[in-house]
């Protein structure tokens, strides 16, 4: 193994380096010096985000267990951008007295899950995939329970770890059956030896259920709302954007690479799951009062839309999925950014608290409105283009009914996405959330998210860039 081979793992290695650096600095930091970890981690992470975009070599490592390509690097870069914005938005919350002592943990835990996700994306066999999955999941439970003195946060952690233990079990069971019937766990060999045996079908479904759990597709979504509600806002935004996005990427990659021979079968599964997910997600989102819970169900419904891009199994579909996730990153982080800023300043997280917000915090209100419009898919913001492209890709493969159902669901979703807007702009409130000033990091995070929401739809460069790395079955 040469130095150049090791460089193939550039993303993972850099993340590990930053993680270790933060850990070591934390060991020696005392008292107020701890605060310096924040700019250190941010700058380091910004650097590796930028480095991630530099041209890289593609190839395989460890006998094909690990591989990189333009597509995987692109996906990792999307995740990096999201994590950078989340870091910026977390600063105000991390500086609170109660979190000061353990702020390094936050960075370390997030970075370690991110390494897991990168490994999942780059995995060339099921074993690596599973290792990545666990690396990504277990620290997440710790993150959800970050403010463990709060019952809800602790509850979120325990629920997440219990549920994912179950889903990992099922998935591992599926993988063991894959190995049992094909004699290999490598993606290429499994695809070659696939014989459509009944046991293999079972294996596929078990594996799929495990991934569906991560993306929180209905009916494997039940953990989502409780965990999202209980976890700190920034962890929730990480769960809903990065964790979900990476799992969607992995599901797409595995379906395209390992299961092309049963494409007719998994298209039917995805069809049913997509309809269920969009509809159920919407029905539950309608009645949520807690904004984190509200966004949890909204993110379930959005995950249903993602399946529209995967189902066509085309290169266009892959482009649209990656683009949608990117648009969703900016949009959802704009929404969560506002939530996080308000939560850090006042601790309020309910829709009713937002009544009359426009009077006191017009900029935050406008930003949240922008995010809601984008989630609902109103042109010309990013969310509109994301949905439009997904629908195009599904329609181009003839899934007209699915697109129709998706359009109906998008229409229904408009109702609840406008509820927060109504609360902020129309509803009267005797004592609304007082106006407050945010620090530099929060502002930068919000600005990045807003700029992305506005720009990536209008500027086509991003879409064309993604399209150049996409591949499909046909």
């Amino acid at each position, binding site marked *: 193994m040469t130095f150049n081979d090791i460089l193939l793992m550039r993303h993972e290695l850099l993340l590990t380096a930053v993680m270790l650096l933060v850990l070591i600095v934390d060991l020696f930091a005392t008292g107020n010096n701890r605060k310096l970890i924040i700019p250190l981690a941010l700058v380091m992470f910004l650097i590796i985000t930028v480095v991630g975009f530099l041209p890289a070599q593609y190839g395989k490592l460890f006998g094909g267990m690990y591989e990189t390509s333009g597509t995987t690097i692109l996906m990792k870069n999307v995740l990096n951008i999201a994590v950078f914005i989340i870091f910026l938005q977390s600063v105000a919350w991390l500086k609170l007295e109660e979190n000061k002592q353990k702020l390094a943990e936050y960075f370390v835990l997030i970075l370690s899950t991110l390494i897991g996700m990168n490994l999942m994306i780059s995995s060339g066999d099921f074993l690596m995939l599973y290792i990545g999955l666990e690396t990504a999941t277990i620290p997440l439970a710790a993150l959800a329970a970050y403010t463990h003195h709060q019952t809800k946060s602790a509850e979120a952690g*325990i*629920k997440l770890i*219990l*549920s994912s233990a*179950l*889903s990992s079990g*099922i998935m591992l069971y599926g993988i063991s059956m894959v190995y049992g019937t094909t004699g290999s766990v490598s993606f290429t060999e499994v695809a070659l030896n696939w014989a459509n045996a*009944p046991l293999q*079908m*079972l294996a596929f*479904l*078990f594996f799929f*259920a495990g991934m569906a*759990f991560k993306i929180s597709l209905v*009916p*494997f979504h*039940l*953990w989502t*709302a*409780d965990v999202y509600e209980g976890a700190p806002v920034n962890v929730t935004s990480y769960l809903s954007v990065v964790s979900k996005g990476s799992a969607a990427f992995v599901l797409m990659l595995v379906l395209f690479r390992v299961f092309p021979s049963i494409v007719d*079968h998994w298209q*039917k*599964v995805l069809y*049913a799951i997509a309809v269920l997910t969009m509809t*159920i997600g*919407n*029905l*539950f989102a*309608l*009645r949520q009062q807690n904004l984190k819970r509200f966004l949890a169900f909204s993110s379930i419904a959005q995950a249903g839309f993602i399946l529209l891009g995967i189902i066509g199994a085309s290169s266009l579909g892959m482009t649209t999925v990656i683009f949608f996730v990117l648009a969703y990153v900016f949009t959802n982080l704009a929404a969560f950014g506002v939530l996080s800023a308000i939560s850090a300043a006042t601790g309020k997280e309910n829709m009713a608290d937002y009544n009359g917000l426009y009077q006191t915090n017009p900029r935050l209100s406008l930003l949240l409105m922008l995010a809601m419009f984008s989630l609902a898919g109103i042109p010309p913001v990013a969310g509109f*283009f994301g949905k439009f492209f997904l629908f*195009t890709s599904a329609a*181009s493969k003839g899934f007209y009914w699915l697109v129709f159902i998706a359009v109906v669901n998008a229409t*229904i979703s408009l*109702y609840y996405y406008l509820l927060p807007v109504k609360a902020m702009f129309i509803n009267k409130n005797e004592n609304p959330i007082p106006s407050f000033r945010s620090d530099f990091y929060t502002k930068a995070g919000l600005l990045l998210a807003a700029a992305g929401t506005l720009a990536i739809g209008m500027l*086509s*460069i991003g*879409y*064309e860039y993604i*399209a150049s790395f996409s591949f499909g079955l046909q």
Partner: protein
Amino acid sequence: MTNYSYTLLIPLIPLTIFLLTGLSGHRFKPIYSGLAGTMGLTMAAFLSYITAIRYFFIDGPVNGMYPQIKAISTVWLRFTDTLHIDMGILIDPISVMMLVVVTTVSLMAHIYSLGYMKGERGFARFYSFLSLFSFSMLGLVLATNIFQMYIFWELVGVSSFLLIGFYYEKPSAVAASKKAFIVTRFADLGFLIGILMLSFTTDTFDFISLTSSTGPAIASSAGTAFMGLSVISWALILIFIGGAGKSAMFPLHIWLPDAMEGPTPVSALIHAATMVVAGVYLVARLFPAYALTAPDALHVVAWVGGFSSLFAAVIALTQIDIKRVLAFSTMSQIGYMMMALGVSGYGDHEGLGYMASMFHLFTHAMFKALLFLGAGSIIHAVHSNNMTDMGGLRKYLPITHITFLIACLTIAGIPPLSGFWSKDEILAAALHHNPVLFAIGFGVAGLTAFYMFRLYYNIFWGHDRHYHHTPHESPLVMTIPLMFLALAAIFSGFLPFSHMVTSDLKPFEAHTDLAVAIPSVLIALAGIGVATVMYRKPNTLPDRLASSIKVLYTASLRKFWIDEIYQFVTKKILFAGVSRPIAWFDRHVIDATMNLVGWVVVTTSSKIKGFQSGQVQQYAAVFISSVILLVLVFVYLFSN
């Protein structure tokens, strides 16, 4: 080949200034917004002139043909691998010519407004809107494809709406801006359908491939027919409807006279020189497609243009409001341009009409902007739009007077002023094609000379009126644009247009046809003569004439009751006959259905909330049973 990518700056400068002054204009003194806008436009104009000089004179034709250069092009929205909307910049003879027209007139309007709008509330807003308009219009003329043009077309419509309604406290201005927006928007529906039909048949939006003689548009023109015309012809006719709406062609012209509610520099810029000729530009852009595949559509263009020009000229004879006279004159002259396009053939000398149309567009922009800015200067002096409140102003407004006279002579077609040359080519092309259209054009030339000099004499000659205070000449910042445009109006006729802007991009020799030129000058002189007799000195002749042909006079004064017809059709027929039943249906059937859907959704939502119990053991149970259910369904579906 020369690199023209710097032309991207030409639209981007006004955009930047719009964003700057629009977002933070209120933080500075208003005058800074005005100066910023003017400076930005100066830069844009400078770059446009450089581009024009390089394109026409330094680079010139390559192999006897002007190249069509895509200076910049990027895919903006991809529908399929072949069909995508691009954003880019197309450099070719007409776009370069329009660059010069738009930036010149816009710059003049910017400078002029520094004086004209001085002290107005909303001065900064006015300038930011002007920048927005300049950006949109430049984007429109530089568009590489029809969809990009459509996007900017709508942006131009929006900025026109904003500027017509600039005095938003005046109900008439608000009504006029709404009217302009709705009428043109209505016409744009035709444009959009046309674009969709065209792109569906040809699988491209791109102008170069749509107009290339080997391109898909021309190849598929022989395709399916509907009511005797090919799909391409229908598409092009629908696209022309969009152009007719923007260019105020009969019967979609009703918004233009009302649009004069906007500030006068806006009328000069948008409603005389640039936006209203967008329709002509659109047809010219697609001209090879019209000429080679859809001669029927071209006939429609010719007749609509010819009729509009006559119709508007007749109305202009009797109007009292000087801006409305000019508005109808604009409509009439644009009709001329449309007619010239309609009678033109493709290639070489056959394309005389095309060349003449573009030539007239250029000269008209200069002298009509001059007329409007002159009218603004007059209105500035006497605080009224009506010629009954004016008279004898030549003593008080010497510069305005001379420049206005030059413009009147130009539009009347007196040699060697620019209007003569371009109008002469149009008439020659019409004569070559169709004697009836030539007769219309010829008659309009006489009418034009008459009503312009009626206007001129009524304003500058005759009795002094009882002015509240002595009228005085406008400040230099307003008269300099007048003088500049007067020079342009005099000399722009000497540009060798047939060597620059032609239907097939190849230069050709155009000659002045004396058999057309002499009669057209004579009829112009006749028109001026009649106007001199009737209006030079106050007399009773006009009144006697008006009462002897009372019906015609009233019809013209009331603009042939077209507005009233629209009112009748919309209010009495559409609203009562169609909208009411639809409204009932909407309220009782559609709303009820929607309420039902809402009720179902909310009820289901509350019924199923039990699933979300918060019990993690229940979640696990659901998880396992879902997997089992999935397996069962799978077994059932694929058991064979």
